[in-house]
């Protein structure tokens, strides 16, 4: 057992670390997709950027603040989501929060974990708006940050004792991960499930591939389905595949497992029961949920239940 305050800080450290990686990955994927299709289908490129802005909303979402010109839109989004210190969903902000939380509980971490995280943060801190505005510069900066986050996750895996502190850190990571998957799917699916009859098929497949890549699942999908891209297969994969770490099924099962271990053989806590029901729904009734429009309603339900898990954690464990 650990201090409630420490559990709380580790949970948020896990969430912010995972969030930083999610933003990094989705930025990299979006930038690549948008710059590739800009000549072919400019509205699509603009749509990609705007969707990303919805997934990671800034403090000021007023319509007139969003740049009209595509290039300006891309550059503003890159800057805001990468290094803007005031944007609540910038990589910088998230890493800073992860590090701030780590600093308050350094005694609960190993030196390796703290130093790797701190180095990653400090490297990103060194980038300027100008470096980010330049395509290759941006890619190398973000790739370095992503490697740093992976190294931190590696240090956690390699050096932390599997004690209750580790469980809360992992819980934060898993909740953030599955939540972000659900948000991305909820936002991207409407367009991807009912394409216009005149759709350019190769481009349509590119968008599915980008979605899979945005959820680190393209290679895993290919291992199961090969290079054949079918919307329904891809959707099923992202929702129900039991092995890919960013599917809803995998994520809810992971959260359930962690919350059961945190309950430690006592009566299951309220968040453990909420996630238990949700994970069971996904694992056993999944196939029934795919009819017309049902998947979107289901995603709304998933998002609501994940929110409940998060809210009930505070009263169950953090004493807040």
């Amino acid at each position, binding site marked *: 057992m650990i201090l409630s305050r*420490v559990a709380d800080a580790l949970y948020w450290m896990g969430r912010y670390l995972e969030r930083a990686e999610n933003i990094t990955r989705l930025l990299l994927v979006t930038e690549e997709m948008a710059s590739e299709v800009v000549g072919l289908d400019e509205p699509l490129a603009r749509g990609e950027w705007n969707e990303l802005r919805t997934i990671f909303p800034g403090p000021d979402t007023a319509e007139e603040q969003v740049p009209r010109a595509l290039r300006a839109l891309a550059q503003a989004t890159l800057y805001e989501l990468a290094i803007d210190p005031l944007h609540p969903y910038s990589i910088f902000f998230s890493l800073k929060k992860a590090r701030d939380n780590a600093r308050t509980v350094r005694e609960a971490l190993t030196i390796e974990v703290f130093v790797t995280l701190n180095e990653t943060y400090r490297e990103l801190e060194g980038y300027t708006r100008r470096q980010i505005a330049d395509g290759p510069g941006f890619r190398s900066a973000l790739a370095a940050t992503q490697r740093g986050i992976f190294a931190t996750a590696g240090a956690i895996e390699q050096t932390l004792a599997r004690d209750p502190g580790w469980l809360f850190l992992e819980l934060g990571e898993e909740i953030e991960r599955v939540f972000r998957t659900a948000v991305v799917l909820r936002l991207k699916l409407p367009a991807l499930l009912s394409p216009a009859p005149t759709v350019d098929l190769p481009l349509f497949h590119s968008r599915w591939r980008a979605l899979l890549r945005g959820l680190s699942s393209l290679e895993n999908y290919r291992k199961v389905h090969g290079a054949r891209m079918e919307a329904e297969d891809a959707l099923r994969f992202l929702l129900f595949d039991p092995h890919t770490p960013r599917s809803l099924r995998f994520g809810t099962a992971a959260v359930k497992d962690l919350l059961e271990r945190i309950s430690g053989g006592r009566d299951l806590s309220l968040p453990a029961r909420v996630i238990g029901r949700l994970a069971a729904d996904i694992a056993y009734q999944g196939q029934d949920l795919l009819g017309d429009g049902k998947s979107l309603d289901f995603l709304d339900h998933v998002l609501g239940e994940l929110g409940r898990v998060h809210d009930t954690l505070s009263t169950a464990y953090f004493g807040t």
Partner: protein
Amino acid sequence: MNWETATSGYDEVFDGADHRPRPHYAPLISILESFTRENLERRERLQKLALMNQGITFTVYGEKEGLERIFPFDFVPRIIPASEWKTVQDGLVQRITTLNLFLLDVYHEQRCLKDGVIPADLVLSRKEYKRELLGLTPPKKVFTHVVGTDLIRSETGEYLVLEDNCRCPSGVSYVLENRTLLNRVFPEFFASYPVRTVKEYPTLLLNTLLLVAPRPSQSPVVVVLSPGIHNSAYFEHSFLAREMGVPLVEGRDLLVEGNHVFMRRTHSKQQVDVIYRRIDDDFLDPLTFRRDSMLGVPGLVNVYREGNVALANAPGAGVADDKAVYAFMPELIKYYLGEEPLLAQVPTHVGLRRDDFRYMTEHLGDLVVKTTGDAGGYGMLMGPFSTKKERESYLAVMKRNPGNYIAQPLVHFSSHPTHVNGRFEPRRIDLRPFILNGDRIRVLPGGLTRVALRPGSYVVNSSQGGGSKDTWVLAPREP
């Protein structure tokens, strides 16, 4: 290589008219001379990077919130031969013994006040004297579990006590980290010296704390209590908790129930036996001391009074390191131990005494004036370096409360070669050894050497532009 030597005060390294290195520094100087300038600079860069990446930082007050700085580190180590250290160590043991006897006395019979060894009103008027704790005996009669005593060296090289820190002396984490860092960046320094280890400190500290646990048989729970991440010494609080393997807690993590102290944990409460608190007395318990304290634990002092929790250092111990009480230490040592002080100290004028205060007001330009309650170099006037205007306004404030001030002549304390801008230049240094008071009094063989990085400066405090050095205490050579 160009070595500049000290123009005033004792030079720690170079001796006599021909400026030859003292024998214990000769090997180090020749190793340093074997480095090229580029190589030194490269090593220095590595060292700074290591400090930043490891987050070995402190917070500066009064600047923008959350500003982290690294504590500048100078790689030229300070070396103390075994024979010199023996004097320091014996003197410190004598001093800490006296401080504890003094504390026990002023909170009980007050013999030293009745016998006129120290003026009663001087002791009883200190805000660090906690009359709420009168008659209370801390476990094992230990008031000061951890003391950091600041030493300087006179112009002849004699060690002088500048002040004792009996409340929450900080800096020991840098003692340990400086050793690790120096060994990483300049491993070749260590080959020719029998340097005594400082890495035992966390074990010794934990043993010291366990010794005063009220339930010694039931694997006592020790915690480090910190004001939180915004405190300037937060790194150290976290470091010590990590090194000792005990929880780091803040006031809000603790609660008092049924006259025991508990930690709030995820599934249940856990009783706490020993609190190594790094919070000042005033903030410890809003029910006993400052009511507005958000950092403390309501009811903690009552539990302490009942003997159900041990606090290190004991509340009320701060009166012993008061700068005015310091002036009477030589008399107190003789009074309690019947011994002559082994370590000399700086002559001190006490504002509370009318004659002393008159002398202070008349010689302000020659004196270093300090307020009795403050630490960290805050509220101080360096007379010889002050302007007339500064002295006048300081004097006006002083006159409102003379008892709050003490004054000392400026000691031209010792200098040590320090690497600044690619050159080795003399900079003034002091020394803070750490003393633990457990089954017996132990002095950690090492200490924090602080260095005034500005040329000519006498101010070594980290909050005022000071840095630090690794401090080597050498083992006696086999005969």
